[in-house]
């Protein structure tokens, strides 16, 4: 090992609780008590609090950027500001505003229609809903029972209690998010499922496109739908072709 180049990296790895290679572990055992390493360790330890404060600024900006991704809110704010500006002026402006608002609403409804027209929650095929004492059921059974009853908020709260949820659970959780009109959350889950080649990969791809459409990210949805529409074996081949025709 070239100590001059790498020794700080080993200290950083230990500091970050990363696994060391055998060579690194051996180096650490031999050198951890040297003045140089101790000084580096003290530096990193002391750096924590200043970085914690720095992180607040960074994280706040990051959270604000998530807000900018919320399409409905941005739209509502814009229409809200427009409305107050025009209402204070002339009748003509009010009429124009009404037309604009009507146009926006019609456009929004058209967007939403695709999702409500095509979204059909995936049936519960993993866990038959049990009868009897609900208190004896585990979170998976409770979640799937709520899911089957279309009580999606309640289903999501049970899904969240499941430790290390499987791909299957995450797939149904994504469906539940779509069921309560939280496409950003649904998209997060479906994108992961598609990229991890899960059992529900094909199905997830379909729900991923619906989430994208709900988020007004039609171009991305179209790209995925086009690939689905070329694969006759895809579980949502027909739906993809149909929706593609309408969106394009």
């Amino acid at each position, binding site marked *: 090992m070239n100590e001059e180049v790498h020794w700080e990296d080993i200290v950083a790895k230990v500091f970050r609780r990363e696994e060391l290679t055998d060579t690194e572990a051996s180096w650490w055992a031999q050198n951890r008590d040297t003045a140089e390493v101790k000084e580096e360790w003290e530096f990193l330890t002391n750096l924590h609090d200043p970085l914690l404060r720095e992180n607040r600024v960074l994280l706040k900006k990051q959270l604000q950027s998530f807000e900018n991704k919320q399409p409905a809110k941005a739209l509502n704010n814009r229409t809200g500001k427009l409305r107050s500006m025009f209402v204070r002026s002339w009748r003509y402006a009010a009429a124009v505003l009404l037309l604009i608002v009507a146009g926006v609403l019609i456009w929004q409804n058209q967007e939403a229609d695709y999702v409500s027209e095509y979204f059909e929650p995936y049936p519960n095929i993993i866990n038959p809903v049990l009868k009897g004492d609900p208190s004896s059921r585990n979170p998976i059974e409770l979640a799937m029972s709520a899911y089957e009853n279309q009580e999606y908020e309640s289903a999501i709260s049970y899904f969240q209690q499941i430790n290390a949820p499987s791909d299957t659970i995450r797939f149904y959780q994504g469906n539940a998010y779509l069921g309560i009109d939280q496409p950003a*959350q649904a998209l997060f889950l479906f994108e992961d499922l598609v990229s991890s080649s899960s059992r529900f990969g094909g199905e997830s791809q379909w729900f991923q496109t619906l989430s994208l459409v709900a988020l007004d990210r039609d171009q991305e949805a179209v790209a995925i739908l086009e690939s689905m529409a070329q694969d006759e074996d895809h579980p949502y081949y027909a739906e993809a072709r149909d929706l593609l025709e309408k969106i394009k």
Partner: protein
Amino acid sequence: MKSELSTDREIEHLYLEFRAEFLRNTAKYNLDEEQRVDIYQDAFIVLYELIKTHPDKVEKGVKNYLFGIGRNMILDRIKSEIKERKVKEDMAQNVPIEAFEMPVDQQMNPLQKKMQKGLEQLSAGCREILVLFYFRQYSIAEIQTSMNHRSENVTKSHKSRCLKKLKELVKS
């Protein structure tokens, strides 16, 4: 839900997971949505720090803490507008205020104060990479994605340069 919060996506996921419910539950407090979003973000930052520094304190569950901290913050804001009564009643019924005492910043030692001054003199990119690597514990690959670097090697050398520069500033 347990989360390491070691990627931007995990942070975004957790942020959005409870956002709508928080805004709905706090609509009664006569604060506009922008104010409630601002409070939700501040509560999220406190929660994030708890997860990173004292994960054992979040035993009651992430949502419990997030909502508890958020309600405390709402109380603080409303106090200044003399609208405290309704919130206290609500809190008495739901979440005990004492259970969610806000963490207090530790007093920094002289070395840490120098470090903070040093950080202020670094570029925004340097500050960000040091936060992501040494505080958030992101992997080099995740930082590369987050900061749009050309390669992991660029990220690594950037990180090393920034740490070296900070050390120089602290020593000077």
